[in-house]
């Protein structure tokens, strides 16, 4: 007799927003507003649309720029800010709306005032790691009659940074082990790294051709839960380029040198690994016997 115990499915979406391209989008005008505003509106609408699907659904939104990562929702500063409720909007959605706008505003303004833009890589890997930590915590706190279906949605517009290669790979394989699906929605640029991450965890990778239609892409491709995706027709998977980028010149390499300690990849041989500072002593075994021969002759 088959008798399965039902567990309530709780779907958690952690949206990781890369705020570094904000400056770029802020300068693009669109229908009297800027592209940046349109993007944030779309993201908030998507978050609320996810919450709207079922009463158990959970949402987390994390943003990052080149200096910091920040939890926008649920917001970390415990005091409940008063929020303006638009007529007709469900209270909970209004709260998401105000928390996210407020948090993003702070993050971007801080970035603008600090004009020290020597390092422009975004801390996307770190933000994703925080998302995974949050998912792990929710999973532990959830009552046992529930089953968590977590996924991470990365929305980014910046290129790969080889500096964070290790972080990314760690995040991908942790996600795979924890059964977290990583989805990725790229604007403007393509990211080979995230492509690999989506492929490893069974998520969907999409490079959207038009940023103005972001919400439509989000609702069509990323709103359905992974279990439902087999039922609908989605864009065909992109061919994943599994070639690694070398750490020295960020070129894609077929055959390269790999550090035996940290597995960093280089297109040319160097005597020291630039990532973990290991010295490669390749020639030593050949030199040592020669030396001892000489000494033996002298004696």
């Amino acid at each position, binding site marked *: *007799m088959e*008798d399965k*115990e039902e567990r309530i499915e709780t779907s958690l979406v952690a949206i990781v927003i890369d705020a570094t391209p904000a400056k770029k989008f802020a300068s693009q005008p669109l229908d009297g507003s800027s592209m940046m505003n349109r993007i944030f509106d779309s993201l908030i609408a998507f978050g609320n649309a996810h919450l*709207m699907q079922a009463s158990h659904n959970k949402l987390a939104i994390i943003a990052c720029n080149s200096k910091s990562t920040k939890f926008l929702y649920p917001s970390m500063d415990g005091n409940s800010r008063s929020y303006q*409720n638009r007529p007709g909007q469900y*209270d909970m*959605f209004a709260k998401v709306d105000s928390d996210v706008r407020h948090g993003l505003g702070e993050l971007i303004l801080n970035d603008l005032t600090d004009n020290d833009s020597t390092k422009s890589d975004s801390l996307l890997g770190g933000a994703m790691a925080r998302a995974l930590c949050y998912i792990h915590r929710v999973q532990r706190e959830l009552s046992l009659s529930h089953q968590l279906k977590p996924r991470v949605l990365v929305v980014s517009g910046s290129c790969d940074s080889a500096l964070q290669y290790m972080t990314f790979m760690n995040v991908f394989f942790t996600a795979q082990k924890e059964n977290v699906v990583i989805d990725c929605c790229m604007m403007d640029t393509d990211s080979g790294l995230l492509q690999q991450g989506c492929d490893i965890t069974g998520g969907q990778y999409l490079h959207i051709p038009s940023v103005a239609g972001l*919400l439509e892409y989000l609702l069509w491709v990323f709103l359905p839960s992974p279990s439902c995706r087999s039922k609908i027709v989605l864009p065909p998977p992109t061919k994943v380029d599994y070639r690694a980028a070398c750490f020295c010149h960020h070129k894609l390499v077929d055959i390269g040198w790999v550090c035996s300690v940290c597995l960093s990849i280089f297109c040319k041989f160097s005597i020291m690994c630039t990532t973990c500072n290991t010295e490669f002593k390749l020639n030593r075994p050949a030199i040592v016997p020669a030396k001892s021969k000489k000494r033996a002759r002298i004696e």
Partner: protein
Amino acid sequence: MSVQQRTLDCKDLHEYLKTLSATVLDRLYNHPATCLAVFRELPELSRLYIMRILFVDQAVPKAIMGSWVSPNSAKELEDIVKLLTELRLWQEVEMQGGLKGWLLNPTFRRNLKGALLGGGNEWSMKPPTDADPKARGIAILDEYAMGRWECVLHFMVGSHQHEVISSDALQILQHAGLMKKEPGENQLTITRDGFQFLLMDTSAQVWYFLLQYLDTATARGLDLIDCLGFLFQLSFSTLGQDYSTDSMSDGLQKFLQHLREFGLVYQRKRKDGRFYPTRLALDIASGPKKSMLNTMAATSLNQSSGYIVVETNYRVYAYTDSSLQVALIALFCELMYRFPNLVVGIITRESVRQALRSGITADQIVSFLRQHAHPECYKEPPVLPSTIADQIKLWAIERDRFVYKEGVLYNQFDSQADFEILKNYAQERGVLVWHTTHGRKMVVTKEGHEEVRKFWKRHSRNGSM
């Protein structure tokens, strides 16, 4: 006719809405909360369809909609189309060029969009402008709600140590067929349905009770639409937040007082001008299936959930001192010992059959044991030993060994060949109930009869030619 156990007909939200007339439905969608509640109860694929066309202000051709799903879920698409049409969420329209398309109900679209992004009709429930000087904490609200609700249940099991419930509640219990007055008796007694009702989980009970209440709402002079709209708003309200009663109509005020009596809302004084929704009211629309109540109850109301341990030797340990809970367990258990905080019982064939006789189903017993399992049991799944669950079901199956089916008898075949042909035909169609070569008899289901008869006519005509 098959002798199936008659189970308590507890409709979920959609089934309930389908019973309402089209005009009522259209008026109902005038409110964002209702739209949100209806939307959440839809199956996942149909929610997706609605999301996709939510921002499209014109009809979308059927052919395009059909291409959204992969070919092997086409069947599912049909179900969705049927469901959404029945709920009047969309309708078929003729598009330019004679194309058939689907158009989302404009009221529903506007209000769902409103709930999501703002800008639709306003919610009528608003927090009062000034803060409550005597604000109530969540713990007090929980205690109050469970207290009120258990009072009703206590009344049903007939433990009379508690205050008597109001005449309104009594009427509903009678109307719902949960309790009835035996002729010549003054006392209400519990019915078969009542027993089943007791074993449902709290959220399902509340939902069932409210459905029955709404049935009689118009008779009480309340507006069904107003009440439903208010209920849905209540289900989306925030726990621990007070709401103002100022803008409510007289009818709704009356409705509020009834809800207060069942513990769905808390009000300190009738004329207080504010009320607090309790956990019973939250998320009510998710109906009998699943509600936040069960899950939250596990953490905050631990005295009311999670007290039963069942061992593989059929022993049941219930850590409780509530006479209601003991009475519930006694419905299908033989009680052995009773201690101040613990009751020990044993599940036997006789005790389960006793329960089955009074109309409770095996599934209800099993799900009851599962729902109220002690938190310790959750540490090592399965929560309920599978031997116990299986055995209870086997005991139930024991009782219905006969399956009755309506059918039509075919006999007096002239030749074995004729019989074989007709039997094979019926078998292929899946309408054959029973046959025997001895005496050449076969029984075909009533639905299949017409088809088989036509085939036989055709066959015999061809044969004679």
